[in-house]
Every structure is written in C-alpha cells, then in structure tokens.
C-alpha cells in the first residue's frame, strides 16, 4: 500500500493499511471491553453488589463515549478535508465559567477513576467560544490524559485569564511529551512512538477547532510532571471594559 503524501489528502503521511490497523486496534479494544463487561454482568449478576453493577455500567458507558469521540474526530477530519482545511467558526460570546462548569459534568465519566481537579478562576470575562467545539476539545484532552496517566492519578484542569485570552490547561501525571516532539503531536496521525496508544488524530482536531475560534494550543510540562496541554480562547471584549 503506497504512503500518501499530498497535503490535502486526509491520509497524508499514513498508509491506508496502517490506518486500518490502528483503527482496528482502537475500535477492537473498545468493543472487547464493552462486550466483556456485558458478559460479566450477565454471568455474575447475582454475585455483584449494586455498587459494582453500576460501576461496570459506568465503565461500559465510558467506552461508548470514547468511541463517540473517535467517530467525531473522523467526521471533523472529513469536514476539514472537504472545506480546504478550515473549520467553521461558530464562535460567539460565551460565559466561560458557566460553560466549563457545565462541561465538567460531561467530562467526569470520561475520566473514569482519575479524579478531576478543576480550578477555574472566578469571574472570567466572556470569550469567543462554541460549546460543541470546546466540549470536543476537552473530551479529547481528557481521553488523552487518561490514556497516559497511571491508574487513579488525578487530572488537573486549570482555567486562567492571560491578558486578552482565557487559557485552559489539562495536565496529566504521565511521562510527559519530550520537548522535541511537542509541536509534532498536533500533526495528523502522529503518535509518540510506534505501537503507541490511540489513532493520533485527537490533538490535530483540537488544534483545528481552537484555531477556528481564534485561539492557540500547545504542549508543555505539568507542574508535577506529566504533559500539560493548554489552549486559549480570545476574550470577546476588551478586558478593560466592564
């Protein structure tokens, strides 16, 4: 199978064979987990406590959510390809405190056994944002953070105003991203190493969505080790105005 290389090709830099292999691995694992838990519920229903049953159902739902993120990433990729690599800009003035607090409820199930440590600066100014786009970015970042974090390690979400931007940072407790690969991870189908986790599409889509809203995204170090992915949303009005 030939490696494709044209810049407007959705599979640029990746052979179709490799894409199918990676997708098969990713989707196969998700289906295996859901199916396995379902069969355990059926086989051991009487033995399981109600708490354990609910925990298993939550784990099954988490896999479905991850599958939805994966499918959404490919839909965004298709949209990017069809529209000359530009995302639609649906940004509108948004109360970022309300938006992120509401999203936290959606993100917690994705984080599974990783506690979310959420620190949102009070009274942030309105930003240019789109709920669906920010939600998709945050879901990708949380899924990534869980994949690279040790079990039960917390994931930190910090939101701060930096001048005329609001910065959102998601920090895991994994091994971090080597400094020479930090720009590279936002490219299409890039994974940190051969056989690495995931499809390598989430951060590429995140960058496209953030930039469509007028923001920036980058990778750095977490304060307690691990990777810290930050993105910004522009303040919608001059912040020296009321």
């Amino acid at each position: 199978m030939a490696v494709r290389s044209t810049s407007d090709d959705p599979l640029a830099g990746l052979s179709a064979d490799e894409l199918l292999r990676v997708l098969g691995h990713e989707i196969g694992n998700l289906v295996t987990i859901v199916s396995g838990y379902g069969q355990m519920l059926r086989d051991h229903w009487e033995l399981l406590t109600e708490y354990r049953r609910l925990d298993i159902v939550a784990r099954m739902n988490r896999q479905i959510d991850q599958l939805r993120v994966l499918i959404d990433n490919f839909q965004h990729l298709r949209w990017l390809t069809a529209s000359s690599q530009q995302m639609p800009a649906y940004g509108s003035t948004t109360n970022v405190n309300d938006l992120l607090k509401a999203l936290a409820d959606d993100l917690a199930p994705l984080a599974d056994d990783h506690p979310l440590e959420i620190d949102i600066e009070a009274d942030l100014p309105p930003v240019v944002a789109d709920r669906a786009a920010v939600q998709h970015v945050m879901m990708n970042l949380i899924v990534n953070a869980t994949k690279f974090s040790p079990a039960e390690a917390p994931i930190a979400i910090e939101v701060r105003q930096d001048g005329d931007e609001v910065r959102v940072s998601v920090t895991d407790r994994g091994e971090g991203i080597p400094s020479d690969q930090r720009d590279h991870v936002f490219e299409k189908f890039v994974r940190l190493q051969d056989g690495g986790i995931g499809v390598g599409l989430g951060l590429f889509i995140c960058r496209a969505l953030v930039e469509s809203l007028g923001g920036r995204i980058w990778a750095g170090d977490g304060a307690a080790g691990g990777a810290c992915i930050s993105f910004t949303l522009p303040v919608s009005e001059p912040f020296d105005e009321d």
Partner: protein
Amino acid sequence: MSEENEVFRVLVADDVQDLRSMLRLALELSGRFTVVAEAMDGAHAVDLAAMYKPDLALLDLSMPALDGLEALPRILEASPATKVVVLSGFEEARMAPVALKGGAVAYLEKGVPPRRLVQTLIEIMQPSPGDTSVA
C-alpha cells in the same frame, strides 16, 4: 489450600488501561486468579515479570516500547516458570504460530468471552491428569 482451589498470580500486559481493568475483574471474579501486576508496555512487562514471578502472564502483542513478541522471550528469561498466554487483537491463524514458537503456551484472540477466557486459563494452569494439550 488444596491444589484444586489454588489461586494463580497473574501479570496483565496491555497498553489499554481500561482493557486491563476489565481483564482484572474477569479474572478475580472467578476466584481462581489474582492480578499481582499490570504492565502498560512490553518493557514494563519484562520488569514486572522479573519482580513478581507470576504464575501466568497475559500478554498483548501490539504495545509501545517493546511489543509483545519482543517481550515474550525476555519475560520467560526473567521468570522461567511463568506461563505466557498471548491475548491479542490479531487473528489467531496469523500470529499464533509465531507466538507459540516464541514460547507462549497459548494464543487467544481479544473478544473471547470472559467466562471462556477464564475457563481456558484454568485448564492451562491446572491441566487434567493426562491432558497434554494447550488451548
């Protein structure tokens, strides 16, 4: 503890944490296995095998750092008594001969129902008298 009720110590090696968690629950619900260590890549699996000397290692093939086929002989070198069962998403017909040649005692495809997985592993760890077959 009688041999029939022996609880076997298991190392689970897979790069997907959620899959490791599912396998841990399936194994431990049976009452016949306890997961003593989980590895997220092949190199980690070799280190943990040397440290814990498990009775059984469930080994994925597609992993970062060191893939399962590369890790397999090193696990056996680090812990010769460990029985290694490959649990992979690759088709059995394609990869089983390579895994068995590398020292695995059995090859199972991901997606095998947990009950059958557990039963197969019990048969591997506690074969019936005169039974010399593997899964």
